[in-house]
C-alpha cells in the first residue's frame, strides 16, 4: 500500500463549525435603560449627575447606561457601609449573617439563566461559559462562605477573628459576577461591609446582583455597588474610612493601589496579571494535554489572569502537539456569544481588541510564526481569531507580557531543569500547568514552580474551597477556601 508523507495529510473541519444557529433567547434578560448607584439598599441618582453607556461588544449596540460615581458618591457609599457596619452587621450573630448569604446564593441560582444572558450580552463571553461556569460558580462561592460565617472559630482555632470594617472592592471585566462573588461572599461571612465597584465595561450583572441583595432583604448599606471608571476606583482606594482594599485587575493598577495605600493602615489583597506556563512532557496524555492547552488559552477569549498563555512542549513531541493543536483550533466556533455552540465569543472592548491586535503585530515583527484558525469572524463587534505563535524565543515580548487575549506563545524545551527555569523566568507567578503521566514528576515540578496555582493534567479548574492567588507581580493574598477568610479578619 502506498503511504503518503504525513506532512501532506490534513483533516477538514469546515462542516463542524457550520452548525445551524442555536441562539439563547434574550427574553430572559431584563435590562433597565438606566441604572443608578446602589447605596444604602436603594438605587440612588448619582451626585455627579453623569451616566455612561455600556455596550454589547458582540454587536456594538448600547445595552444601558449606568451612573458615573464621583468622589462625593463614593463618600456617600462608604458612609452607608460604615453606618451599616457599626449599627447592624458587626453586631449581628454570625448564623444570622449566614442566612442572608445563603439567601443571596439561592436567589442567584433561581435567576441563573437571566444572569447568564446578561453576563454574555454585557461582556461578550459565550453563553456556554456564563451558563455552565460563571453563574453556578458565583452562586457556589456564596454557598461556601455562608457555611463559614458561624464557624470562624474552627477556621482560626484558638484565635478570635474580628472583621476589618469597610472593604473597598474593585473588580475586573473578565468574570464580572464571579469576581463580585469572590469579593463579597468572604467579606460578608467575616462580618465586614462592602463598597464594590465593577469594571466600567461590564457593570450590569453587579447591578443585577444589587437587585438580588434587595430581594434577599440584606440590611441597607451592608453591600453598596457603585459604578464608574478609574477615577471612581481611585476615590474608593483613597477614601480615609476604608479598612481594606481588595483588587483584581492589571499589575499596573495594582502598583498604583500599593502606592496610594502606603503609609495608611489599609489592608490589601491584590490579584493581578499572569503569564502562566503550560508544560507538556513527552510522556503526557497528548490529546488531553492539547485540550487543556485549548481550555487554558481560549477559555473566555483568553481574558483570564491565570490563562496558560505560554506553552512549553518537550521537543520529542513538539511537532505532534502542534499538529493536534491546529486540528483542534479548526473546530473552535467563533462568533455570536449568545449562540449555545459558540466556543469563543467577543473581545470585551475595542480597547482590548486594539491591545491584542498590537501584540499580534509585535509577534510577527519579532519573527515568530503566527497561525490562526480558518474561521470567519462576524462583521460587527470585536472579535479575534484563536491564534498561536511558534518559533518564539523567551526574550520575545509576546512570551513575556500579558496579552489578555486568545494568543498563545509556544516554545520547545529539552530537559526538566530547562523548563523549570524558563517557566519561572517571568515577573508573574499566578498559575502553571504540568502535563505528564508520571506522578513523581508532577510533585517534583509543582514544588519548584513559582506560581500560586499549579494544575497537573488539568487547567483552569476552580472551586470555592480552593484558594487562588499569586507570587511576585501577580499579587498577594488568597481568595477562595479557608485562606480567603484571612484577608478579611484581624486575628486577636
Amino acid at each position: 500500500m502506498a503511504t503518503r508523507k504525513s506532512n501532506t495529510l490534513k483533516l477538514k473541519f469546515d462542516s463542524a463549525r457550520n452548525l445551524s444557529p442555536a441562539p439563547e433567547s434574550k427574553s430572559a434578560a431584563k435590562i433597565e435603560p438606566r441604572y443608578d448607584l446602589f447605596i444604602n439598599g436603594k438605587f440612588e441618582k448619582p451626585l455627579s449627575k453623569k451616566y455612561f453607556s455600556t455596550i454589547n461588544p458582540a454587536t456594538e449596540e448600547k445595552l444601558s447606561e449606568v451612573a458615573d460615581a464621583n468622589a462625593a458618591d463614593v463618600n456617600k457609599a462608604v458612609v452607608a457601609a460604615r453606618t451599616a457596619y457599626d449599627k447592624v452587621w458587626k453586631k449581628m450573630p454570625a448564623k444570622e449573617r449566614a442566612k442572608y448569604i445563603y439567601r443571596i446564593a439561592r436567589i442567584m441560582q433561581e435567576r441563573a439563566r437571566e444572569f447568564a444572558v446578561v453576563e454574555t450580552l454585557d461582556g461578550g463571553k459565550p453563553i456556554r461559559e456564563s451558563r455552565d461556569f460563571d453563574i453556578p460558580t458565583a452562586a457556589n462561592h456564596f454557598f461556601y462562605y455562608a457555611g463559614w460565617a458561624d464557624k470562624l472559630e474552627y477556621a482560626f482555632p484558638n484565635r478570635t477573628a474580628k472583621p476589618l470594617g469597610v472593604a473597598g472592592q474593585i473588580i475586573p471585566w473578565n468574570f464580572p459576577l464571579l469576581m463580585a462573588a469572590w469579593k463579597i461572599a468572604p467579606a460578608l461571612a467575616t462580618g465586614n461591609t462592602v463598597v464594590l465597584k465593577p469594571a466600567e465595561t461590564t457593570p450590569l450583572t453587579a447591578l443585577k446582583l444589587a437587585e438580588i441583595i434587595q430581594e434577599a432583604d440584606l440590611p441597607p448599606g451592608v453591600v453598596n455597588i457603585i459604578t464608574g471608571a478609574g477615577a471612581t476606583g481611585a476615590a474608593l482606594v483613597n477614601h480615609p474610612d476604608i479598612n481594606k482594599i481588595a483588587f483584581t485587575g492589571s499589575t499596573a493598577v495594582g502598583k498604583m493601589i500599593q502606592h496610594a495605600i502606603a503609609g495608611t493602615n489599609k489592608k490589601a489583597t491584590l490579584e493581578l496579571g499572569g503569564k502562566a506556563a503550560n508544560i507538556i512532557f513527552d510522556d503526557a496524555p497528548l490529546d488531553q494535554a492539547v485540550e487543556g492547552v485549548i481550555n487554558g488559552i481560549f477559555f473566555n477569549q483568553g481574558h483570564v489572569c491565570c490563562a496558560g498563555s505560554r506553552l512549553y512542549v518537550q521537543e520529542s513531541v513538539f511537532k505532534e502537539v502542534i499538529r493536534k493543536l491546529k486540528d483542534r483550533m479548526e473546530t473552535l466556533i467563533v462568533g455570536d456569544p449568545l449562540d449555545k455552540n459558540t466556543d469563543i465569543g467577543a473581545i470585551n472592548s475595542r480597547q482590548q481588541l486594539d491591545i491584542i491586535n498590537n501584540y499580534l503585530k509585535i509577534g510577527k515583527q519579532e519573527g515568530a510564526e503566527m497561525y490562526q484558525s480558518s474561521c470567519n469572524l462576524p462583521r460587527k463587534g470585536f472579535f479575534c481569531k484563536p491564534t498561536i505563535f511558534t518559533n518564539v524565543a523567551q526574550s520575545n515580548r509576546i512570551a513575556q507580557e500579558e496579552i489578555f487575549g486568545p494568543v498563545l506563545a509556544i516554545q520547545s524545551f529539552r530537559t526538566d531543569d530547562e523548563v523549570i527555569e524558563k517557566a519561572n523566568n517571568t515577573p508573574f507567578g499566578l498559575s502553571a500547568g504540568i502535563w505528564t503521566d508520571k506522578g513523581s514528576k508532577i510533585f517534583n515540578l509543582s514544588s519548584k514552580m513559582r506560581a500560586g496555582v499549579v494544575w497537573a493534567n488539568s487547567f483552569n479548574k476552580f472551586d470555592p474551597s480552593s484558594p487562588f492567588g499569586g507570587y511576585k507581580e501577580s499579587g498577594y493574598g488568597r481568595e477562595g477556601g479557608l485562606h480567603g477568610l484571612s484577608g478579611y479578619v484581624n486575628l486577636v
Partner: protein
Amino acid sequence: MIVTKNIPDFTASPHIDQVGVEERASRFTKRSIKNETKINGLKLALNMIDLTTLEGKDTDGKVKQLCYKALHLHDAYPGLPTVAAICVYPSMVKVAKQALGDSGVKVASVATAFPSGQAPRDIKLRDTKFAVANGADEVDMVISRGKFLSGEYNFVFDEIAAVKEACGSARLKVILETGELGSYDKVRRASDIAMYAGADFIKTSTGKISPAATMPVTLVMLEAIRDFYYKTGKRIAMKPAGGISKSKLALHYLVMLNEVLGEAWMNNEWFRFGASSLANDILMQLMKQRTGVYQSANYFSID
C-alpha cells in the same frame, strides 16, 4: 497481509487521562444541534446504521423482515435513505444477501466465535471463510480479550492479521469489546494493534457486555484512528455498537466524529452505528421535525 512495514511497540501506545477524556467527550454533548443541521444529522445517522439482529432465536423469517425494514425504513416519509448494512450471524448471511439483492445495503456478519472469541484459531478462520463464502460484504470479528489482557499482543495481532487474510475482499471490523478491557489505556492499545494488523474498522463492542459503546471510549478510538491516519496515510473506519438507542445520543456521536476526524469520515463508508432500536427513534424525530408533533411509537414498524 502486512499493512505497514513499521509496526510499533504496542506497550508504548499513548496514555489516556481518564478525567480529561471524559470531560472532552461530555463537551460534545453541549453542542446544540438544530433545524437543518439536525435533519441532515438524523438522516446521516440513519444511513450509518448497521441494523442488527444477533439472537440465538434468529430465523430466516426474522432476518427477511429486518432486511425489508432496512430498505423501507418508513415509507410514509419519502426520500429517506436506507441503513448501511444488516448485521447477522454467519448462518443468516445467505438469507440476508438474497433479501437485500443489489440494493446497495451491505451484509455484515459477525464471526470468529462471536461474542466470546473463545475458540481455536482454525475454527475462527473457518467461521470467517464461511461467512464470506455465503456473501458477507463485511466481517465483524472479536479479539481474544483474554490473550490481550495477559499481554500476548503478538497473538492478538497475528490473529487479526490471519482473519483479515481470510476475509479476502470483505471489509474487516475488529471488535475490541471495550467493556472487558478495563481502562482507556488498554482501549487505545487494542485499537493500535487492530489497525496495524489490518482492521478496516475498529468497533467498540459486541452488544453482549455492559458497558457497550460510550462516548469517551469512542473518542479514544477516534483519536487512535486520527493518529494512525497521520502516521500511515491510511483511513480506518469506526463503529460504536451497543447502547446507542436515542437520536440525541447519535447526534452527539456525529458531532464528536466531525470534530475529531472531520468531514471525510462523515459517511457510512467510514462510520457506522451498531444498533437495533436506534432507527425507530430517529424516524420518530424526523417525523417530529416535519410535522411539529410527536407520533405514537405504534406508527413505526418493529422488526
